[in-house]
């Protein structure tokens, strides 16, 4: 939802499908590198992460790598808080999410039982 409204995003809705893992154009600069980094940092394959890190360094530089790591860190934290406390999505966010739930396939998540 925040991606859709963000500066620099002129991509198609397929960017939302890419968030769900589909092989789609993101419409975001270095989007493929960012998605690969997100996947690698959540897994335990050191070689895969090293490759993803190098691509980020090439495309976004050291500062980009630090920020990508910080954002991944932040959302690793947020998902644990949301899932552990059974909170629902706030009503304004829920109405924003309605049109894109199918694209994101998020209703299939275990946590959707708490959130919807």
């Amino acid at each position, binding site marked *: 939802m*925040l991606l859709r409204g963000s500066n620099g995003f002129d991509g198609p809705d397929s960017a939302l499908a890419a968030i*769900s893992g589909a092989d789609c154009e993101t419409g975001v600069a270095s989007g493929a590198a960012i998605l690969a*980094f997100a996947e690698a940092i959540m897994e335990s394959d050191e070689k895969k992460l090293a490759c993803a890190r190098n691509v980020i360094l090439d495309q976004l530089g050291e500062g980009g790598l630090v920020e990508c*790591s910080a954002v991944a860190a932040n959302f690793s934290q947020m998902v644990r808080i949301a*899932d552990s406390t059974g909170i629902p999505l706030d009503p304004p966010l829920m109405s924003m999410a309605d049109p894109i739930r199918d694209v994101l396939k998020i209703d299939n998540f275990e946590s959707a039982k708490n959130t919807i």
Partner: protein
Amino acid sequence: MSLSYSAARYSVRQDLEQAHQRLWASLSAPGTWLTSAERIEVASQARLARHDGTLERNSSILSQGLLEVAKVVGGNPKSINRIWFDEIVPKKLSVERYVEAVGVIARSVSVDVFSKGLGLSLPDFPEWQDGSPTMVRPATAKVDVGWVPMIPNGREGGQEAIKVFGGVNANVIRALSLVPDEVKGLLDLLEHQYIEDKKVTDPSYESNRGISRAQTELLAGRVSALNDCFY
């Protein structure tokens, strides 16, 4: 032991390093419902669970309830559901201790993920300190929209809501408000790892750090999806 990124191959913003240092310092201090030793052991067991979630572990410091929370919240958050929560709280753990443990685990995970991203060794946890938990519970906290009591938004939350999360805030920020110090720590990390709380809902806001807002949200969305997080 103080956390430091001074030996890192890549230059880390000072404000971000300091936020992580504040987190490490807070881990080593007695909490509201957990002792210093429990806080550090919960974070340590959560780290172990992430690295090898299949192993059963014992802890001389943690109760079975705290150990289970460390293992699941740290290592396998996708599996969390209401049935699991009801097995833990309040049978094995008070809700106050549960909320504090979730905050400690979630915040410490962020330091580990950050270190992993930069290819750094995970930092040693700090030494524990003497002292007793304060055991102060917000008077207004109650179960409203989630599984755990939270300080309500707006007038119902009164001065506590204003003090802890600015009066009105998103559920994910209020989620830990049964333990206000955990919200304080969360907001600190949010600002330095992502975006200042008040700016989050403005998608046009740019932090002018190393990546754009669109890049930030793309990454945030993918990390959340990989964790099966609807929220």
